[in-house]
Structures are given as structure tokens and as C-alpha cells.
């Protein structure tokens, strides 16, 4: 298996997904050599970690970048560098892999690579070993850029990888159609594997208690504040909601290039006093804010999967998710809306705040459902794919 990052040295969902899937696969008896480009101080007993010792500087990955300008905002020049450096690193990874792969020759039945940075390495591994190549796609260049001027070099690497792969595993159906349409790949080669979640609800001290005691309802936005996540739709829906249901606050957990926009937009609509910005949260802090919320809203314009929705459900919080997300294809006990339909978004938010039984049932049924949406379930489907190829 070829990856780019693993927790806790991860910047987003990619590392978590690789870890969850590897753990579940190894429990099912798959032995995994997991190759990372750079040496990291991690120790995992269920996979054999191999480091390729790429000497290029490798920083944390951004899950999305809209333009060159937003890219440079995320990575100020002294700490890191434009996408070209990733491309360079990706090719260095490919060079380094040759030696590693030759040593593993007799141990490998399948090559499984995650996202474009590993594709050059994966392709050269396939050339050397002549074994089937499975490509797992957590996001494409089209997701990361919202379709605005995808980086042609990255697109090229992705397309080549897809063509060379024996099977492509996107994390959602919308992404599958993108791989077929934008990259010209035959859909027989593409099989959707939804992400899983193995988390259980923790007993944590309550958050935002002062507001709750005063009878305020809490609506949560959690995620990067970037165009793809639809923060502008959230603010406009918030305006519509507060006009009808004044005892509400909107908590925004996350950071990103549109945070200033969100603040000024809320100010313009005269609802800034109803907003709380917490910054980026992780671990227990994140779970506490989920548990405090009456509703988690994920208004994403484009969302390959959207694991945060499952994290909310694990914490017993009802979710309203955009129909444009991968997770909306599998999670039944959720409210769904088209991200652009502000009126319907507000209608559903108000309904959850107003009708207690709706919140109760979404939480109860969702909690039951999410126990089935495990990594073990995803791993079973991946195993099916392996069996077809070997």
C-alpha cells in the first residue's frame, strides 16, 4: 500500500482513511507493507511501515486549494512552496520506490495506492512487479479546485494513474462520475468504496452550557472554511433561520481562506452577534462541540465523502448534509438538501430546532445506523475487489 501521510502527522481525511482501512484489512488477514515517502516517528503493529526517505521537503497536505493565491495563503513562502514541489516529491517517491519494491518482490499480490502523489510511485511499482494496481481516490484535482483551472500537471498524473490502474476506488458516486467523465475512464473499472468510521461516543463534559441554559439552540458548521464547503450558503441560511427562530446561535469550527468573508457576510446580514468562531478543533474538543450542537450542517458544494457527518452522528447529533456529498449516498438517517437551496436548508434547520421529536429520532436512528458504517464493511468490499484481481 502506498500512502502520503498517516495520523497523527496528517492534514486531513486522507491519513485517517488510510489508517482505518489498513487496520480493518489487516484484521481480515491481509498483510500490508505500507510505504510512506518520508520517515515519521510512528509505530503501528498491524502494518509493516516502510519509509522511502524522499529528501525533498514534504509539508502537510492541503485538502483543497482554489487558486494559486489561496494556495500561497495556506502555505506562506518560507514554510512551504507551490504545488510544483509536490509534483517533484511525487516523482522522487517514484524513483525511491524501485529499490524498496525489488526487496518486497515475493510478498506483494496487489499494489494499492492512495491519491495522486503516490501514483508515479505506484505505476513504477506495477511496471517492476507486474501485479494488479488498485487506485484509491479520496479527492481529485477537480474536487480540490472546485473545477476552476485544475493544475494540468496534477491532472496529467491522475489521468495516467487511472488509465494504468486495474481498478479505481473513489469514495463516492459523484466522484465516480467525475472520473468517468473528466478523465475518460471506463466505468466498469470504477467501484465506489465508501469510507467508514470506527469511533464510539465518548462521555465528555458538556460545551456551550451557558447558551444552552439560556435556551439557545446550537447549529454547527465544522470543516475547512473554503469555497468547496459552502460557507456562504451556510451564512445565508443562518439569516433566514434567525428571522424565524431568533433563539439560535451558529457555531463555526474550522479555519480557512473564506473565514473573513464569512464574518463580513454575517455582519452585512446583521447576524454576526449570533455567530461564534472557534477556530480549528480536534480530538475531544471537536467531539464536545458536536455533542453540544442541536444540528450539524454540511452545506458542501463538492464533498468527495464527508467523514465529519459520520463523526457528528457518532456523537448523537442530527445532520443536514448536502446531496452533493458522498456520505449522503449511504447515510439514510440524515436530512439532505441541495447546497444552493437556501430556503429548504433553512426550512430543515428550523424544523429540527422546533420539533424535538425530529431531533430525537434522527439522533437515535442515526446512532444505530452508524454502527454498521464501519471500516470493516469498507474493507470487505475492498477484499472483494482484491479477489477479483488476484
Amino acid at each position, binding site marked *: 500500500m502506498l500512502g502520503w501521510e498517516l495520523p497523527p502527522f496528517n492534514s486531513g481525511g486522507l491519513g485517517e482513511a488510510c489508517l482505518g482501512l489498513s487496520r480493518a484489512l489487516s484484521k481480515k488477514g491481509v498483510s500490508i507493507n505500507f510505504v510512506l515517502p518520508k520517515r515519521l516517528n510512528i509505530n503501528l503493529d498491524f502494518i509493516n511501515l516502510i519509509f522511502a526517505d524522499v529528501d525533498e521537503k514534504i509539508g502537510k497536505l492541503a485538502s483543497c486549494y482554489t487558486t494559486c493565491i489561496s494556495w500561497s495563503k495556506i502555505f506562506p513562502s518560507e514554510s512551504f512552496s507551490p504545488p510544483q514541489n509536490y509534483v517533484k516529491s511525487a516523482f522522487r517517491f517514484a524513483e525511491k520506490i524501485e529499490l524498496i519494491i525489488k526487496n518486497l518482490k515475493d510478498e506483494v499480490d496487489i499494489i494499492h495506492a492512495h491519491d495522486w502523489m503516490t501514483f508515479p510511485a505506484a505505476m513504477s511499482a506495477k511496471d517492476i512487479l507486474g501485479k494488479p494496481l488498485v487506485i484509491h481516490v479520496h479527492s481529485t484535482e477537480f474536487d480540490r479546485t472546485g473545477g476552476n483551472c485544475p493544475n494540468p500537471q496534477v491532472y496529467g498524473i491522475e489521468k495516467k494513474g487511472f488509465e494504468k490502474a486495474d481498478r479505481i476506488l473513489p469514495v463516492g458516486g459523484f466522484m465516480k462520475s467525475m472520473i468517468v467523465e473528466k478523465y475518460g475512464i471506463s466505468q466498469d473499472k470504477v467501484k465506489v468504496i465508501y469510507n467508514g468510521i470506527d469511533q464510539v461516543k465518548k462521555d465528555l463534559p458538556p460545551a456551550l452550557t451557558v447558551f444552552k441554559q439560556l435556551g439557545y439552540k446550537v447549529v454547527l458548521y465544522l470543516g475547512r472554511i473554503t469555497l468547496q464547503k459552502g460557507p456562504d450558503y451556510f451564512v445565508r441560511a443562518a439569516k433566514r433561520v434567525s428571522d424565524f427562530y431568533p433563539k439560535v446561535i451558529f457555531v463555526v469550527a474550522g479555519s480557512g481562506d473564506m473565514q473573513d468573508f464569512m464574518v463580513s457576510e454575517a455582519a452585512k446580514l446583521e447576524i454576526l452577534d449570533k455567530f461564534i468562531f472557534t477556530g480549528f478543533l480536534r480530538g475531544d474538543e471537536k467531539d464536545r462541540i458536536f455533542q453540544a450542537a442541536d444540528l450539524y450542517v454540511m452545506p458542501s458544494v463538492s464533498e468527495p465523502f464527508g467523514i465529519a457527518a459520520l463523526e457528528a452522528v457518532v456523537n448523537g447529533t442530527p445532520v443536514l448534509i448536502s446531496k452533493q456529498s458522498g456520505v449522503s449516498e449511504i447515510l439514510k438517517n440524515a436530512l*439532505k438538501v441541495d447546497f444552493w437551496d437556501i430556503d429548504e436548508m*433553512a*426550512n430543515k434547520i428550523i424544523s429540527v430546532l*422546533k420539533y424535538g*421529536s*425530529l431531533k430525537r429520532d434522527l439522533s437515535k436512528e442515526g446512532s444505530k445506523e452508524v454502527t454498521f458504517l464501519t471500516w470493516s464493511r469498507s474493507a470487505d468490499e475492498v477484499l472483494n475487489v482484491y479477489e477479483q484481481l488476484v
Partner: protein
Amino acid sequence: MPSVCLYFHVHQPLRVKKYKVFDVGYDHEYFNDSSNSNLNNKKVLEKVSQKSYLPANSLFLKLLKKYPQLKLNYSFSGVFLDQIRKHLPFILTSFKKLIDTGRVEILSETYHHSLAFFYSKTEFERQVNLHKTLVRKIFGLNPTVFRNTELAYNNELAKWADDKGYKAILAEGWDPILGWKSANFVYRPIGTKKIKLLLKNYRLSDDIAFRFSEKSWKDWPLTAEKFSQWISAINGNGHLVNLFMDYETIGEHQWKEHGIFDFLEKLPEEILKDPENNFTTLTEAVQRFPAMDKLDVPHVLTWADTERDLSAWTGNAIQSSAIKFIYGLEKDILATEDIKLIKDWRNMQISDHFYYMCTKWFADGDVHKYFNPYDSPYEAFISFMNAANDLKLRVETCLKKRKKKS
């Protein structure tokens, strides 16, 4: 000697349109969706009429003429009769033709296809009486057999029907309440004097209603010959076979392309081939056969799901809160004496509204999903509750006005 009792339930709900919280106070028409979706009641009615009611009626008219021994039983919800009278009167005419043969019995039920018996006895009786009046007006008949919405039945309901002078009442022939007894006999509900209980043979009924087109079923394809043999096999072990099903089974749930019409066309001939067999109306059945034993049903029994209880309508929090909200309006609604308001309130009691909110998706989900015109139970609940809140607002406004006047 099994007598075959064919009984069809005919009903189309009034589905609540997509109704947003922002519509409360402005839009008082809850059932007038005009989109292309399955929330468009008129469109659904037209579709089902073409696929089911019209061809089924013409088939049965033909069969009634061909076989003088054939007898049928129907129940119509008032909500259904309202809709065809308004939109498709020729469908009503085609039902009347069946009834004019004199060999079709019509049953009594609640006008608004409601579960009122379990929430308000007085409202329940009002709806039963409204239905009686309507059936008398349209068909000139006085029903003497009662079936409650969703076949929801218990001892208390049987007692009520007995007191009202009904000759028979229907229920599901569910094994756990029958024990070693068979649904193919007539019973007497415990604590009643005269009334008899007719039980649905759910296996044979569901062979037609649910399994007819199911290719993975071991007895697929079902032929009239095979089915008649199963009926004849009851000879000696029972007096009658009660085949109860939704009329929409014919042509809508089971498609013409899968042979449901051909099956029914051959059925009377095949059944009558055995001289021991015959067809019966429900009233004739209870006149002909004695009650073999008493039957005790303390808890509510329905046709639905593996539980056969009310949980498909009132099992979760959204369902029970919605149904309580609606019945909680009773006193104020009636006090308005506003015909339109009361009618809207009663149409909000149609049991289908609550069925659409059922979240038992993972166990018996498929059936629920098939019948659900909403994307999810939660969507059904949101539109319903928003509309119900508008109704409440109208009642409050109306009562305030009346107070001012007096």
C-alpha cells in the same frame, strides 16, 4: 368446502405537499401538489386508475357476468370516494356497475382512513357515520360488516362493533393470536354477543399481494391452477378462505406484464372446478358458518410488518408526536364549526401520513420505501408538522374572531 371470500380495500391518501415552515400562515392548501412527483394526488390517482382500477373493474364485471357463482367484497375509504367523485367520476361509474350486479358487498370503515379509534372514540364514531352516509348516498347500500383502518383490531373494537349491531368484523389471521386455531374458520370475539370475526388468511393473500411477481419465490410463477389446488387442500380443515388485499395489488403493485390479470381471469374457473368450492360475500359467510371458538385479542393487531401492531404508524418519536398533535386539536377544531377547517383536520388524520414517517427501514424497509412518496421519513414529518402548525394557527385565528363577535 372452502368458501372463498375475496375482499379488496380501495384507498388513495391525500399526501401532504412539500410544505415549508415559511408557508405557515400563508398557504392553507396542504394537498394540492401539482408537480410531477408522487405527492401530486391527482396524478397518482390517474396513474393508478389506468393501471389498476379501470382494467380490474372491467375484468371483474366480465367475470361476474360469466360466473353467476362469483361474489366479491369491497371497502372504499371516503377519502378515495371524494377524490374520484371530484376528478374521475367515470371510475365511480365503473365501480357502480359491479355493485349493480347484486353480488358485491360493501364494508363499513372510517371515512378518513384514520386510526381515530385509538385516539378519540367520539371522533371515530363521527367518521364511521360520515362514511355510512356517503356509501348510502353513492351506492344505496347499508354496510353490516366493519373493517378498521389498517385492519387495526382488538377486543375493545369488536365490543364496539357488536354494540353497534354489525354482523361481522375483520382482522389479521396472525398465528401468535390464533395458536393452534386456524384462520379458515369463523370466530367470536371475546366478550361479545352476536358479532363474528373473519380472519385474513395472510399466507394465501400475500402469495398474490406480495409474492406474485417475486422470481426468487419457490412457487413462482403462480398459476390459477396451482393456487386453486392450495384452496381445495383446505377442504376438511376449514370453512372459508379469506383473501384480503389492497385493490391496487391488481395492476399497480403486481403488474399486468407479470400476468396478474391473466391469473385472476382464470381463477374463478379453476376454483369452481372443485364442486366443493364456492365464492361468498362476508355477510353470507357469517350467516352460513358458526363461530368455532372465542378469540381473545387484548393488544392491537394490524396487517403490517412482522410485528403486526401499530408500530408502523406510531412506533417512533416523530410519528407519535405528530399523531398526538393532530388529535390534540380536536376540541378547538370542532368549536370553530368551520366545515373547511374540520375537513382539513380530518384529512390530516389519514393513517398514511404517519406510515410515511416510519423509520423501520433496516428490517422491513423495502415495503415502506416502495409506498413512500417522500425522500425520507423525516421529510414526511417536516411537511406534515409545518402544515399541522398552519392548521393550528387557523383554528386560533378563527376562535379569536368568533370570540370578538360574541
